């Protein structure tokens, strides 16, 4: 396992107690805390190298452009892209998926074409396709999730072959169930049917080694803020596809030439980055990826796998607690659960007053909750700075929840 105590020392937020107690942060699936190196990298941009990118020819502008492009190369290296031009900076995973929907889907999809997603998708990998399907008269189908919280791969394959499938878009790791999906097989199934494969990497890229070339993915979107970086994200797309696509947003920096009659588009990746981008955030993302690279993504995954195994063992001790999703060996560092007699909001509220941060609600996955007949769940999630003590604090907190809500009577 990683030395989480040493890692915590890299994250200034843990120096600050909550209601006199140490911060127990178990909501990294929503967004992660930031290491000092990222905070300093962002500050350093504003203190030493800030100017707009790709415009000025004075030295400061060149330094800013170079730092911004270095960050893009780091993203490309981190996820195994062939070249930096295949990386488009976006605000977050949601924007990356919307880019694919607008720039590829809107121009390509025909009435009657099929889009295949799964029941375990986050709303950001669901609602854009719903919209696209309704605009184009296309068909959106959902591969089912089993009672154990795994993807029904046979059903997914049947759905892919059951229509004129043009696009298969799946999460590599569920943000509720924690399920790690067999993306490589799914990409192969999509390609065998002549469809494109889009991967929602919001939960996988921060927690698992990622290699878009080994996966043979057509697109992969992820969010930097879920891996220690500021509010920024990236979309990977295969060069041939990106070149064939129309821009998503129009404006400055994405054009080659503009006349009153029209405009021509800049090269990749600038074609998709209209307007002044999030410069310092991109450089912060580069710093966060360096930090993770030093830890090693295999070690990150192993650390979280050990924590989730321990958490599932300990949670089973709490009376009335039911865990959603698969066994520990098939999931990442996410555990969603219900506690009989306690609404998730009350659980999160009481734990919050004890300095324990968990999420309660639908976690942007309402159809998945309906699939399991649940109005809401509580969710604890882990990252590199979490320790066994955090799990122990959660368990003690849940016993306190039971006491406060009178469940022991």
């Amino acid at each position, binding site marked *: 396992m990683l030395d989480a105590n040493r890692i915590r020392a890299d994250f200034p937020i843990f120096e600050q107690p909550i209601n006199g107690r140490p911060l127990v942060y178990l909501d990294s699936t929503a967004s992660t805390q930031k290491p000092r190196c990222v905070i300093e990298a962002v500050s350093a941009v504003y203190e030493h190298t800030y100017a707009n990118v790709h415009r000025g020819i004075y030295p400061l502008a060149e330094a800013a452009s170079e730092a911004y492009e270095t960050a893009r190369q780091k993203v490309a290296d981190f996820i195994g892209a062939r070249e930096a031009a295949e990386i488009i900076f976006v605000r977050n995973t949601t924007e990356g998926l919307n880019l694919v929907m607008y720039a590829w889907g809107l121009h390509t999809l025909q009435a009657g074409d099929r889009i295949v997603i799964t029941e375990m998708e986050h709303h950001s990998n669901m609602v854009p396709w719903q919209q696209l399907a309704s605009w184009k008269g296309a068909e959106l189908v959902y591969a089912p999730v089993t009672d154990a919280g795994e993807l029904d791969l046979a059903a997914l394959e049947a759905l892919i072959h059951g229509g004129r499938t043009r696009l298969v878009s799946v999460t590599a790791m569920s943000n509720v169930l924690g399920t790690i999906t067999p993306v490589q097989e799914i990409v192969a199934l999509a390609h065998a049917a002549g469809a494109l494969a889009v991967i929602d990497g919001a939960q996988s890229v921060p927690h698992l080694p990622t290699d878009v070339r080994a996966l043979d993915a057509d697109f992969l979107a992820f969010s930097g803020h879920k891996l220690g970086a500021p509010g920024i994200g990236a979309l990977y797309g295969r060069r041939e596809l990106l070149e064939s696509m129309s821009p998503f947003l129009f404006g400055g920096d994405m054009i080659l030439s503009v006349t009153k009659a029209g405009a021509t588009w800049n090269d990749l990746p600038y074609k998709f980055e209209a307007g002044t981008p999030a410069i310092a955030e991109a450089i912060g993302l580069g710093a966060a990826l360096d930090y993770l690279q030093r830890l090693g993504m295999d070690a990150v995954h192993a650390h979280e796998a050990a924590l989730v195994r321990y958490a599932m063992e300990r949670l089973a001790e709490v009376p009335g607690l039911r865990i959603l999703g698969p066994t520990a060996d098939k999931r990442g560092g996410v555990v969603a659960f219900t506690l009989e007699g306690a*609404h*998730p*909001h*009350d659980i999160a*509220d*009481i734990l*919050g*007053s004890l300095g324990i941060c968990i999420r*309660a*609600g*639908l976690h942007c996955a*309402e159809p998945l*909750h309906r699939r399991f007949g*649940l*109005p*809401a769940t509580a969710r604890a999630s882990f990252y590199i700075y979490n320790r066994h003590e955090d799990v122990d604090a959660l368990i003690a907190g849940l016993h*306190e929840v039971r006491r*406060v*809500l*009178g469940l022991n009577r």
Partner: protein
Amino acid sequence: MSELYRETIMDHYHNPSNFGVLDPADVEMELDNPTCGDHVHVTLRLDEAGNIAAMAFEGNGCVISMAAASLLTEAVVGKSPAELKTWGLNEIQELMGGVRLSMGRVKCATLALEAVKRGLNQAGK
């Protein structure tokens, strides 16, 4: 421990007042809080002067939404529809013993009140 979960609130949660449905009712409304799955169904009867004579609620949800609904059923009796329509978070916080609710709990606390206001509007009261 959070001051929200004091004994009076927990009593209203475990033993809610006026839990059920008034049949017949002059005002009826069901409302969900989609972010957390809370659900309330409120029914009200008006007296001859048009003021609230009785209110009942049923539903399921968190301690805050259910306790606030229970407290509301007692507080609305004798009030006019016009007055109730001016009620908001402050009145609910008062009913709950002067607590200050965090942003995340406001929708839970005001769910039943919101249902009452929508029901009154729908009934043209």
